[in-house]
């Protein structure tokens, strides 16, 4: 026979790889998890959009996050915040799968197709302040943008942000400081008469 690997390895790979995608989870906890997931869909989508700047990618990220979450076998460690856990799953899927795939496929990551805006098809009446805030955050590089979002929108502590992003605390602090310096350079919100003039860049 041709160069057979050790007896254990093939078996190990077999068990690891040829398995149903989903493993057993108590039905009751599955339903509870679904109910919980349902509460976080809009927040996850919002984070997916912040990262990808594309609505369809945001939806794809939410779906992949739900699939991954439902696959979890063991309950979360006590004290783990469900929302942090879900945000960290979404972030890791974005970083390790979706973004790298899009880069490989040469799909542009800049020039959002239809990132957050309040115009056109979307019924909600534009709040000028909100539009300006989002444009300013959107102009930050991804690593700063996500820190600003997790800390100031999701209200996570620095430690929680570091955990979601899997980076050291000091990195979170320096990204936030850099982002803050950039954001401070804009004129105050009320000084901008209309989002259509100064800030369309």
């Amino acid at each position, binding site marked *: 026979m041709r160069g057979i690997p050790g*007896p254990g*390895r093939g078996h190990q790979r077999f068990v690891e790889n040829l398995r*149903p995608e*989903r493993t057993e989870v108590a039905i009751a906890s599955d339903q509870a998890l679904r109910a919980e997931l349902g509460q976080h869909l809009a*927040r996850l*989508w*919002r984070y997916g959009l912040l990262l990808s700047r594309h609505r369809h990618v945001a939806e794809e990220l939410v779906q992949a996050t739900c699939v991954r979450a*439902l696959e979890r076998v063991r309950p979360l460690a006590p004290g783990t915040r469900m929302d942090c856990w879900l945000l960290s799953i979404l972030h890791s899927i974005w970083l390790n799968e979706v973004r790298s795939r899009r880069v490989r496929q040469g799909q542009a990551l800049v020039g959002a197709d239809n990132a957050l805006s309040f115009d056109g098809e979307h019924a909600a009446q534009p709040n000028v*302040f909100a539009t300006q805030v989002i444009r300013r955050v959107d102009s930050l590089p991804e690593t700063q943008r996500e820190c600003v979002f997790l800390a100031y929108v999701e209200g996570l502590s*620095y430690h929680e942000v570091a955990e979601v992003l899997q980076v050291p605390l000091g990195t979170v602090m320096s990204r936030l400081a850099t982002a803050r310096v950039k954001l401070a350079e804009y004129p105050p919100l009320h000084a901008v008469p209309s989002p259509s003039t100064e800030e369309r860049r």
Partner: protein
Amino acid sequence: MNDHGIPSDEQLVAYLDDQLDTEQRSRIDAAIAEDSLLNLRLQWLARSSLPFKDAYDQAGRQAPVDRLQSMLDSLPSPERPAMDRRWFLAAAAALVVSGVVADRLFIGWQRGQQQNDWRALMADYMALYVPQTLDHLPGDEAAQRAQLRTLDARLGLNLTPAKLTLPPAQFKRAQILEYDGVPIAQMTWLDPAHGPLALCVTRTSSGSRTFAHERRRGLNVVYWADMEHAWMLIGHNPAAELEDMARLLRTRISA
């Protein structure tokens, strides 16, 4: 603080964000009181405190919540009763004993990536099935539909329970398996006379081919391919009966 005891921007921002402990906080309070430039710097940084949460709360109202919710509802439940797990562990244990078999699977699969040996892998898997593997599974059509949608998504198919009826065998389950990143769909039936029966499919680009027969691990196999997929129907049913079923399935699935 840096070498000169002057708080850095990081520390000032953490101060603004109320992320410092009492001692660090009072040190910065003291530094600001002494140093008016530092106070100005803090005020400058504070200009960046925008109504972030409010802005994104408004944006979040644009989320396609209904669509996301129906996506969530359509995700199949990971229902794998304990019985199944015990069976799987027993099967895994059996493979430890016959490590050679497993290695052969591994090597076979490596070679089979380009060839048709994915069938050998599936035959080895199906050889472990007994009627009890399947008979406790509920015949819930909604769940099966959801399972089939997962297959559709991974393999570019368009399957429905109606296309998969094979009386008297009862359709039991559709699931995605994966080996080294290659998805393989497996649809199983329980035939009252011959036991477990499975239709397996993977992607291929080797061109279409008509029905062919083979025997693997004591099971009959009928296999064929269309332009995008390679198919195999495997079970203990007699070869001719299996081919009739395969013909029926192929017609319905390609319709």
